C-alpha cells in the first residue's frame, strides 16, 4: 500500500510547472525556433485516392536548382514508418493508397517560395478503383490492403451467447454509428530536423512520444541509436493526434535536411494539418441483447467495425480498446464481441483521446436507453439492475477486486443534477413548448494504462537524479502537452523525496537525456509512470540514508547536502526504476481473457439538453460529471482534464462533422469544421470520489481519456428524453434533428429548401 494518509504536495493545487512561461508567451513551441541557415520544407501530396504513379514532372516556371527535392528513392533505410505494421511508406513509391499521401518533399530557404512551388510539381497517375465505406471494404472487392482488407479482428467470448436467445424474455437489436473527429489541437503539427554525417539526425518537434519518433527515424535513416536524437518542444495540444503522425513528419524533415545540408523546418498550416493527418476512427456497432423478465442482462452480442483508412497505423490497438470497452460497467454471463478494423482508401485514422472507447461506449450507453424504452423500464433502474459489483467478472472474466461503486456514483449524479424532479418538470412542460428539455445519463469506465500485457511489453524505465548544480530532476520520456505531466510528476517526486515542489524540475524531453518510460498515451502517465517516479524517489532516499547519512527528518537543503556527500562517496546521484506488473495479473492475448487493465476509472455523467423544434438546434444546457479516478493528484488540473474532455465530447456529439470527399477532409478549415466555443459550452459540474489504487502513484488511476467517453451518449439519451426520438448516430447536427423531427422530410430536402 503506497498511499499515506496525508500528503504535503500531492493533492495540493501547486502552480503548473511550466505555467509562467506559457503565460508570459515565452514557452518555446516548434514554430518559435530558428536554426542557423534553416530552410523550409513542404509536401507534394497525391490528388487521387488510389492509383499507380505514372510520372512526376517539375514545371519549368520554377528554378528548381534553388530547391532540394526528395522522393522515395532518397530514403537511405526502410521506406516505412515504424509503428505496429510495416505498411505505411514514408514517401509513396510507385503507387498511392489515399488522397494527400506524401510523394515528393521540397525545401527552400524562403518559406513563401516553397509553398508556391508545391503546385509546380505535377504527378500523373493511372487511377485504380478506391473504397471509402466500411461496407465497401467488407465486400472485399477490390482488395486495397493485405490479402482481405482486414487490418485486425478480435473475438471476445464469455459463456455461450447462442444458448440464450430462445429463453430470453426480451431481445433488443440496434445499430449505432459514430463519425470521424478531428483533434483540432490549436498548434498544428511541426518539426525541425538537422542532419549531419557525424551526429546523425536530430529533430525538435511538437509530439507526444519521443521514442516512437526515435524508432521511426532509426529505421528510415538506417542509423544506430547514438545517431538519432528526438527533442520535444512545447506542444500546443495533442489529444492523440501527435502520437503517431510526428514520426512521419520527423522523417520527412530529416530527409530534406540530409539532402539539402541545412536544418529544415516543416510546420503545417491549418488546412494541411486537417487534410493530411489522422482523425478518430469512424465506427459501426451492432448490438443484439437478451434480457430476462426482470431486466437482467442474459447475453450481449456485439458486432463492431471500424474504418482504419489506407494504412494500419494504430488501428489494431484502437480496435482492442474499443472491444474491451464495448460492454459497459455491467455484469453479463454471456458475451460475444466480434470486432474488425477495415482498410479503405481514406486518409489513415489514428489515436484520439479515448482510443476506440468513445465509439463503443456511445453504442452501449445509447443501447441501454433503447433497451429500457423497449422493455418499458426506467433507464436508471435498468442500469442499477446490471451494474458490476465487488467480485463480479467482466466480459474478459477479469474479477473486480477494486471496490465497485457505480451505485454510489449514480446516486450522487442524480442528486447533484436533481434528476428526477427535473425530469418530471420537463415532461410536464414539454407538451406546450417549442423548446423541449430532457436529461440523459451515461455510466461507463475507462481502463488505465496499456491493454493486457502491454505495460509489460513496454518495460518502462523512469528515474530521478540530482545534478552537480543541485537540480533535482525527474527522468522520463513522458511529455507535457497541456494535461499536466510536468506538474504531477514533479509533485510525486517532491512528495516522495520529502522536499519542496519548487526544487524539482523535469529533465528536458530529449532522448539523449531521458530513458524510455513509454509513450504519453492511454491514461498511463499518472498511474504507471507516476508510480515509477514515486518508487525511484523512495529508492533514492533509501540510498541517501544508507550512504550519505540522511536523517529521519530533513529540510530540502539537508537533502541536497546529503546528495553532495553521496556524489563524493559513490558517484552520480541517480535512481531508476523499471515497470513491474502488479502481482496476480494474468492476460491471454489469444483468447482475450484476463486482466484487461490493471485499474479502471468509473463515471456517471448527466446531460441536460434543450431541443428547439423550430430551429432544430440541440443545446447542452448543463452537465454533471461524477467520477472515481483513484487519488486526485492535483485538484485544479484534474478538474481541467474532465472539463476539457467533456467539451470535446460535446463537440463529438453535436458539433463536429468531418465532410469527406474521395477519402479526405473537404471542410479542412476552422471556418467549416465547427468546435464548441466559449458561448457553447454549458456549465460543467465536476465531482470526484477518491478510492486510492494501491499500484498507482499515491493512489492515482488514469484520468485523461475518461471524460471523452461519456458526453455523446448522455447527450443523445437526453435528446431522446426530450423528443421521444432515438438518434443512433453522431455527430447529430440540426439537419439530422430536422430529418427526425419533421416526418417525411429528409436532411436533403432541408438543404434544398434552404438553397431555394
Amino acid at each position, binding site marked *: 500500500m503506497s498511499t499515506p494518509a496525508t500528503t504535503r504536495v500531492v493533492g495540493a493545487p501547486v502552480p503548473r510547472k511550466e*505555467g509562467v512561461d506559457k*503565460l508570459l508567451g515565452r514557452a518555446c513551441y516548434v514554430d518559435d525556433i530558428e536554426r542557423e541557415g534553416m530552410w523550409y520544407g513542404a509536401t507534394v501530396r497525391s490528388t487521387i485516392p488510389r492509383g499507380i504513379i505514372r510520372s512526376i514532372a517539375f514545371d519549368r516556371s520554377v528554378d528548381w536548382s534553388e530547391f532540394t527535392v526528395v522522393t522515395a528513392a532518397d530514403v537511405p533505410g526502410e521506406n516505412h514508418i515504424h509503428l505496429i505494421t510495416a505498411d505505411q511508406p514514408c514517401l509513396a513509391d510507385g503507387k498511392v493508397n489515399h488522397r494527400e499521401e506524401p510523394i515528393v518533399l521540397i525545401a527552400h530557404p524562403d518559406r513563401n517560395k516553397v509553398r508556391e512551388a508545391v503546385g509546380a510539381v505535377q504527378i500523373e497517375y493511372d487511377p485504380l478503383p478506391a473504397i471509402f465505406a466500411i461496407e465497401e471494404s467488407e465486400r472485399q472487392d477490390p482488395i486495397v490492403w493485405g490479402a482481405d482488407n482486414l487490418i485486425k479482428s478480435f473475438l471476445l467470448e464469455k459463456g455461450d451467447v447462442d444458448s440464450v436467445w430462445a429463453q430470453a424474455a426480451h431481445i433488443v437489436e440496434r445499430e449505432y454509428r459514430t463519425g470521424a473527429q478531428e483533434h483540432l489541437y*490549436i498548434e498544428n503539427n511541426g518539426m525541425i530536423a538537422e542532419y549531419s554525417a557525424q551526429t546523425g539526425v536530430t529533430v525538435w518537434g511538437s509530439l507526444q512520444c519521443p521514442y516512437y519518433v526515435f524508432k521511426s527515424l532509426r529505421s528510415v535513416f538506417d542509423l544506430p541509436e547514438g545517431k538519432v536524437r528526438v527533442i520535444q518542444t512545447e506542444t500546443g495540444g495533442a489529444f492523440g493526434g501527435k502520437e503517431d503522425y510526428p514520426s512521419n513528419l520527423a522523417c520527412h524533415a530529416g530527409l530534406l535536411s540530409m539532402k539539402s545540408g541545412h536544418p529544415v523546418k516543416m510546420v503545417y498550416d491549418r488546412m494541411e494539418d486537417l487534410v493530411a493527418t489522422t482523425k478518430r476512427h469512424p465506427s459501426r456497432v451492432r448490438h443484439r441483447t437478451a434480457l430476462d423478465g426482470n431486466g437482467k442482462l442474459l447475453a450481449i452480442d456485439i458486432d463492431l467495425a471500424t474504418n482504419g483508412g489506407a494504412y494500419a497505423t494504430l488501428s489494431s490497438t484502437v480496435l482492442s480498446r474499443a472491444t474491451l470497452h464495448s460492454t459497459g460497467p455491467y455484469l453479463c454471463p454471456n458475451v460475444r464481441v466480434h470486432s474488425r478494423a477495415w482498410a479503405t482508401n481514406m486518409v489513415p485514422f489514428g489515436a484520439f483521446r479515448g482510443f476506440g472507447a468513445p465509439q463503443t461506449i456511445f453504442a452501449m450507453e445509447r443501447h441501454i436507453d433503447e433497451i429500457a424504452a423497449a422493455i418499458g423500464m426506467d433507464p436508471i433502474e435498468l442500469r442499477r439492475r446490471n451494474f458490476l459489483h465487488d467480485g463480479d467478472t467482466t466480459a474478459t472474466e477479469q474479477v473486480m477486486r477494486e471496490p465497485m461503486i457505480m451505485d454510489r456514483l449514480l446516486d450522487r449524479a442524480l442528486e447533484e443534477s436533481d434528476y428526477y424532479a427535473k425530469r418530471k418538470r420537463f415532461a410536464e412542460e414539454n407538451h406546450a413548448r417549442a423548446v423541449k428539455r430532457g436529461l440523459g445519463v451515461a455510466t461507463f469506465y475507462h481502463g488505465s494504462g496499456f491493454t493486457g500485457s502491454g505495460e509489460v511489453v513496454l518495460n518502462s524505465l523512469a528515474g530521478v537524479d540530482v545534478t552537480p548544480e543541485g537540480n533535482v530532476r525527474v527522468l522520463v520520456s513522458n511529455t507535457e502537452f497541456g494535461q499536466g505531466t510536468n506538474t504531477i510528476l514533479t509533485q510525486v517526486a517532491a512528495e516522495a523525496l520529502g522536499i519542496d515542489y519548487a526544487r524539482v524540475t523535469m529533465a528536458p524531453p530529449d532522448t539523449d537525456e531521458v530513458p524510455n518510460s513509454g509513450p504519453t498515451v492511454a491514461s498511463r502517465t499518472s498511474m504507471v509512470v507516476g508510480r515509477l517516479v514515486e518508487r525511484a524517489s523512495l529508492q533514492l532516499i533509501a540510498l541517501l540514508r544508507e550512504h550519505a547519512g540522511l536523517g529521519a527528518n530533513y529540510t530540502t537543503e539537508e537533502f541536497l547536502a546529503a546528495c553532495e556527500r553521496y556524489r563524493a562517496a559513490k558517484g552520480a546521484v541517480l535512481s531508476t526504476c523499471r515497470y513491474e506488473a502488479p502481482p496476480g495479473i494474468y492476460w491471454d492475448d489469444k483468447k482475450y481473457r484476463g486482466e484487461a487493465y490493471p485499474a479502471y476509472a468509473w463515471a456517471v455523467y448527466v446531460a441536460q439538453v434543450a431541443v428547439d423544434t423550430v430551429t432544430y438546434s440541440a443545446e447542452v444546457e448543463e452537465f454533471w460529471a461524477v467520477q472515481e479516478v483513484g487519488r486526485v493528484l492535483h485538484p485544479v488540473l484534474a*478538474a481541467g482534464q474532465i*472539463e476539457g474532455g467533456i467539451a470535446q465530447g460535446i463537440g463529438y456529439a453535436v458539433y463536429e462533422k468531418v465532410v469527406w470527399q474521395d477519402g479526405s477532409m473537404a471542410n479542412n*478549415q476552422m471556418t467549416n469544421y465547427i468546435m464548441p466555443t*466559449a458561448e457553447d*459550452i454549458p456549465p*460543467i459540474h465536476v465531482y470526484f470520489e477518491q478510492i486510492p489504487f494501491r499500484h498507482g502513484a499515491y493512489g492515482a488511476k488514469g484520468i485523461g481519456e475518461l471524460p471523452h467517453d461519456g458526453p455523446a451518449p448522455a447527450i443523445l439519451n437526453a435528446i431522446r428524453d426530450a423528443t421521444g426520438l432515438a438518434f443512433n448516430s453522431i455527430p447529430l447536427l440540426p439537419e439530422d434533428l430536422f430529418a427526425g423531427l419533421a416526418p417525411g422530410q429528409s436532411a436533403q430536402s432541408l438543404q434544398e429548401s434552404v438553397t431555394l
Partner: protein
Amino acid sequence: MSVLWPAIRFAVNGEIREVYAPPMKRLLDVLREDLHLTGTKEGCGEGECGSCSVRMNGELVNSCLIPVLQAEGAKIQTVEGLAMNGKLHPMQEAFLQCGGAQCGICTPGMLMAAAQLLATNPHPNLAEIREGLAGNLCRCTGFMRIFESVVIAAADDSAAIAPEEARHAR
C-alpha cells in the same frame, strides 16, 4: 532585400518599432519574424481561432488578418507587454491560479481577449465573459477555468488597466 520595402512605424508594448516589410505581410508574421515577438501564435490563419489576438489602438484584432501597412502609426499590445517589472499581470496571475492555461498555445491570444474585455467592461458578468472570449478557441480547458480566471482577475481593479496605459500613468 528589406531596403526595397518602405518603413512602417508603430508602437509595440510602448516601444516605437520600425520595420521594412512587404505592406501586405501579415502583422502576425511581422511580430513573429521581424520583431521576434513569438508569444503571438498562429492557429488557423483565417481569423477563426483567435490565437494571434493582439490589441491594436484599444481594439482586439486577429493579427493574421491585418496587413502590416494597416498598423502604420498604431499602438499595439502583445502578450509580451502584459507583465510589468517582472511581475505577472493580474490576468496572468489568475490564469496561473485557476488553471486557465493548459497546453498554452491559445493562452497569449486568450489573455489579450480577456484583457480587452476588462479594459472595456471592468466587471463583466458570466454571459459577457463568454461573449468576450467567443472569438478565442481553447481545445484543452472546456473554458470553465478561463471564465473563472477572468472573474478572479476582475476582482482586482488593476487588471482593467492595460500595462501601456499604466506606464503612461506613472
